[in-house]
Structure formats: structure tokens, C-alpha cells
């Protein structure tokens, strides 16, 4: 049994009782990374020396008030970390060795004394659903290394699933935390838009992006989100809303809770074994005293189209800052300024990023703005209204996280539309800005994890966690471990 099979709370108590030390935890993390990361390929950058020094210091000055004391974490590589290379999975930033400051989420984790062990692989600039768009390497699914871990936070989900770190941070624009959590059999939370500061998160689509935690259990997840939530004056879209104790909400009680199940989330295109696992989870909720009813989110079928227009438009504007002047790689093949921009960008960005920049530039260009961009914004209103209407009458919305278990590496890589359809159940949640979590709810016949998605009211992460925790306590899916390296 690995140390990381304990919860954050248990480890905290063991540290306080001096049964383990901070150095033991860091050792456990690096031992496991050295044992399995050659297979998993989750990490882009390891920061072993800094982590070990930090652990020594923490052991010398124990702090019982720090909420993540000495706990080893991995950080998605689009969250900037002072003094640590931050690449966004892109060759464009392969030499971005010192981003000069920490993202607010990192500052908050540091204040609670977490130990960062390194930066995790991702689809380039968070664009993708499989981590195959990383320009460095493809991360593997710890349950079956022929399969993708999901994306774009594939490294973040795989590292937690493989027991390399206790928790990680990811970012979610259209499902990039929840879908890989679902594929890797771990817990991934996309908080309400504005709940966590985006300061220091390299922007993909600013009106959709949110940072969130990936963990093995709901309780650990609630603990980490509690730390990183809150208003930040460095991010003008961060919400000035009180942060309750999410862990206090984990009562295990869902009696009388009203659950909405959108019929669109169990429609054609959702694999039968996924549907079966979700229905069986809903029956478990019934046993626990909750009630569920079928409802409709009539505009969900338009979400993917609206999302790709909006996210790509915002991406084309955000990625305009990559000009080869202030940071990143500059092309050697330029003689004048315009050449320098175009060559640096063309050599620096991969195909998927270029595809989205071009789609966004097209959707925003004169003559097409109203037909595509503005139209998509109006459809976004309809999708948001769907959620508002349902969440007026129900506590949470439940469905699958992804329509299928993890697909094989290379299977969808040449087919952008099929790849995009993978996010069909997560994207509407980002468009509506509401919180959503993925928790393990079973396994496919081939032994790959299946995720249950629980969606809540804006800023009501507490109810989402309460619902997820009650299910987790009543089942044992989250206790299963991948057989990587022969260790269970």
C-alpha cells in the first residue's frame, strides 16, 4: 500500500503524530515517479532538488495549521510557477525557464505548505481531449497504456491515478479536468467560473477557463479547492463571493435531494456500458434517499458548435501575445519584423493550435462576426438558460462525464470533429459557468474507468461535493488501483 492511499486528512494526522515526515512523503512521490513515469509520461519537468530541500525545511519547522502541509503535488504546465519552466505543452515555450511570478492558485497552495514536485504534461495550450497534442510526448492512461489519459489535463489526471502525487491542479475550458479524471478513474472538479483566480493561468478562452483540483477522493478534492478558492484583485473576473468550508459539507447525507437527469446526456452516442454505470449510480442515490427525474436541456446539442466558435475566437486573441519578442522561441528564418512574427508563430505553434487560431480569426473577421461569433454568444445564452431553469427546481444535475471510456492513442487524432464530440457532455457546463465534478462510477468491460458527472448551481460547490461524497462512501470504485508496474 502506498502512502498516497491515505487521505490528506489521514496523512496530516500521521505527520502531526510524527509517524511520517515530510521527507517520507517526498520520497514516496519521487520513488513512484522514478518507478512508473517512464510508462505513464505524465511529467514534463521535475523539480526534485527544490522539493527535497523544502521537505527538509518543513520537517525542521512543522506547522499544524497549514492545511496542505508537506503534501506532494503536480501542477499542470499552463499554470505559471516562479523559477520553474512553464511550457503549456508547446515548443514555443520550451525555453520559458522562469515565468518570474507564481499564479495566485500556486501562492495559495504555497501558503498552506504544499510541496510541488513538478509540472505536468498537457495538450498544447490546453487544446485537446487526449494529451496527444502535447508537442513533447503523449501521456498514457495508467489503466491501460495503449489508451489516452484524456485531455487537456491528461498529465494531471494520470499522475494522480498512477499514485505519483497526492493531488494535482488542472484547468478546464470545455471539460479538460473532468474528462481526463473520468478516463483515469480519479476525482476532478471544475469550479464555478470566477471561483478560483485565473491570474497566472496562461489563457486559452478567458470566459470559460477555470483552475481546479484532481485527487483520488472527494474529500481530498474539497480540501484543495477550499485552499485555492477566493476573490483575487489580480483577476478582475474573480468573484467576490464567500468561500464556505467544502469539507464541512461532506455529511454523507443525500436524503430528499432532488436530482435532474437530462435525457440528452443518456442519448444516442453514449456507450451502453457508460449508460449502464450511470443508471446504476442513480439507483444507488435512490437507495440513499435521493430522488431523480428525467429532464431536458434542449439546447445541449448546439453546445459543441457554439463552444468551438467562442473558445477559438478567444484563443486567437489570447495567443496573439506570442510574437517571439518578450519570451518564447524566435524563428531564425526572418529578416524583417512581419517575417519574424509569422515565422516564429508558424514554427512555434502545433497544428491543433493553428487550426483553432484560424477558426477564431475567421469567426471574428469582418463579414462573419455576426453570423458565427455573435450567433454563438446568443446560443450560449440559450444553453445557460437551460441550466438556470433546471437548477431552479433541482439540487444537482447528473449524467456521464464522457460518452465513452478512454479511447486508444492515435484513434481519433486525424479527425478533429470526432475528437471535439468527446467533450459534448462537459462543454455545456463551461458555457453556463456552473460547477461540475467527475467521480469514478465503474469500469468498462475492458477495465477502463467510467466517470459520473455531478453539476451544481453557481457557487454551490458544497452541494456538488456532498452529492459526490455520499456516492463515493457508498461504493468502492475509487478504491481500485491501476496495475501499473505490477503494484496494486
Amino acid at each position, binding site marked *: 500500500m502506498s502512502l498516497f492511499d491515505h487521505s490528506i486528512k489521514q496523512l496530516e494526522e500521521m505527520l502531526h503524530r510524527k509517524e511520517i515526515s515530510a521527507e517520507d512523503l517526498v520520497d514516496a512521490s519521487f520513488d513512484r515517479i522514478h518507478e512508473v513515469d517512464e510508462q505513464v509520461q505524465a511529467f514534463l519537468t521535475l523539480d526534485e532538488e527544490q522539493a527535497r530541500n523544502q521537505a527538509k525545511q518543513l520537517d525542521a519547522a512543522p506547522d499544524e495549521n497549514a492545511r496542505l502541509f508537506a503534501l506532494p503535488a503536480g501542477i499542470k504546465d499552463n499554470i505559471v510557477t516562479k523559477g520553474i519552466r512553464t511550457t503549456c505543452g508547446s515548443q514555443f515555450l520550451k525555453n*520559458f*525557464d*522562469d*515565468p*518570474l*511570478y507564481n499564479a495566485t492558485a500556486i501562492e495559495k497552495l504555497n501558503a498552506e505548505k504544499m510541496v510541488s514536485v513538478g509540472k505536468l504534461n498537457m495538450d498544447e495550450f490546453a487544446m485537446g481531449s487526449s494529451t496527444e497534442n502535447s508537442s513533447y510526448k503523449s501521456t498514457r492512461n495508467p489503466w491501460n497504456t495503449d489508451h489516452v489519459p484524456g485531455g487537456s489535463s491528461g498529465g494531471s489526471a494520470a499522475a494522480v491515478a498512477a499514485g505519483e502525487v497526492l493531488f494535482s491542479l488542472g484547468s478546464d475550458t470545455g471539460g479538460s479536468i473532468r474528462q481526463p479524471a473520468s478516463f483515469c478513474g480519479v476525482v476532478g472538479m471544475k469550479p464555478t*467560473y*470566477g471561483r478560483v483566480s485565473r491570474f497566472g493561468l496562461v489563457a486559452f478562452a478567458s*470566459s470559460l477557463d477555470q483552475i481546479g483540483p484532481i485527487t483520488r477522493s472527494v474529500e481530498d478534492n474539497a480540501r484543495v479547492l477550499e485552499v485555492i478558492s477566493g476573490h483575487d*484583485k489580480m483577476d*478582475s*473576473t474573480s*468573484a467576490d463571493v464567500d468561500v464556505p468550508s467544502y469539507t464541512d459539507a461532506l455529511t454523507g447525507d443525500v436524503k430528499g435531494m432532488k436530482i435532474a437527469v437530462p435525457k440528452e446526456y443518456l442519448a444516442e452516442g453514449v456507450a451502453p456500458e457508460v449508460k449502464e454505470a450511470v443508471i446504476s449510480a442513480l439507483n444507488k442515490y435512490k437507495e440513499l434517499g435521493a430522488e431523480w427525474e428525467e429532464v431536458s436541456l434542449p439546447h445541449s*446539442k*448546439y453546445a459543441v*458548435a*457554439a463552444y*468551438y*466558435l467562442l473558445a477559438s475566437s478567444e484563443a486567437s486573441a489570447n495567443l*496573439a501575445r506570442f510574437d517571439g*519578442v*518578450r*519570451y*518564447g522561441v*524566435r524563428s531564425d528564418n*526572418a529578416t*524583417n*519584423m*512581419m*517575417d*519574424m*512574427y*509569422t*515565422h516564429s*508563430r*508558424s514554427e512555434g*505553434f502545433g*497544428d491543433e493550435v*493553428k*487550426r483553432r487560431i*484560424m*477558426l477564431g*480569426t*475567421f469567426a471574428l*473577421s469582418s463579414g462573419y462576426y455576426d*453570423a458565427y461569433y*455573435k*450567433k*454563438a*454568444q*446568443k*446560443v*450560449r*445564452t*440559450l444553453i*445557460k438558460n437551460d441550466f438556470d431553469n433546471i437548477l431552479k427546481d433541482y439540487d444537482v444535475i447528473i449524467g456521464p462525464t464522457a460518452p465513452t471510456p478512454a479511447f486508444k492513442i492515435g484513434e481519433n487524432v486525424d479527425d*478533429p*470533429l470526432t475528437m471535439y464530440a468527446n467533450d459534448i457532455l462537459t462543454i455545456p457546463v463551461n458555457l453556463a*459557468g456552473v460547477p461540475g465534478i467527475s467521480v469514478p462510477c465503474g469500469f468498462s468491460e475492458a477495465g477502463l474507468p467510467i466517470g459520473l458527472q455531478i453539476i451544481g448551481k*453557481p457557487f454551490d460547490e458544497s452541494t456538488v461535493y456532498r452529492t459526490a461524497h455520499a456516492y463515493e462512501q457508498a461504493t468502492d470504485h475509487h478504491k481500485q488501483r491501476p496495475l501499473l508496474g505490477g503494484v496494486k
Partner: protein
Amino acid sequence: MADISKEQVKHVAGLARLAITEEEADMFTQHLSSIIEYAEQLNELDTENVEPTTHVLDLKNVLREDEPKEWITKDEALKNAPDTQDGYYRVPSILE
């Protein structure tokens, strides 16, 4: 709305400051056409009287005093740049 043409793709690439080869232009024309054709389904919806949502939060302008403060030094600002000289970013000349 018609398909996107190869000429349009090249024009858009120029606007986005991306140099693309003929081969890439063919590939992107095919990909963008299928994505845009897919996006056309939004036209099934009547959105005549729907307000666009740019943002889900009820945001207000955030104002602060314009006060000078220490952020990063010049050396730090130049630290990650691919080409610098004498405390400046160095770029190709813009005049002949």
C-alpha cells in the same frame, strides 16, 4: 453560407500572422470547412430576440488607483526574451 475556400484560409492565416505552406492550406481548408459546416447547425435556432452572453458573471468594471509599484525589474523583464541588447529587446529592423 458557403464552404471556406483555400484563398480565404490563406487570408485568415495572414491575419493571424501564420505562414502556411500550400499543403497546410489544403489541410486547413478541409478541416475548417468541416468545422464551419458543423457550426452551421446553429442556424436552426431562432436567436432574433436573444441577448448574447459574453460572460456568465454579472461583472462590473473593476477600478483602482493608478499608483506606481514594484513589479518586475528591467533585467527580469528581459530575462526570458530570445534576443536582447543593451537592456532592450532586439528585433529585426523595420526600415530598409
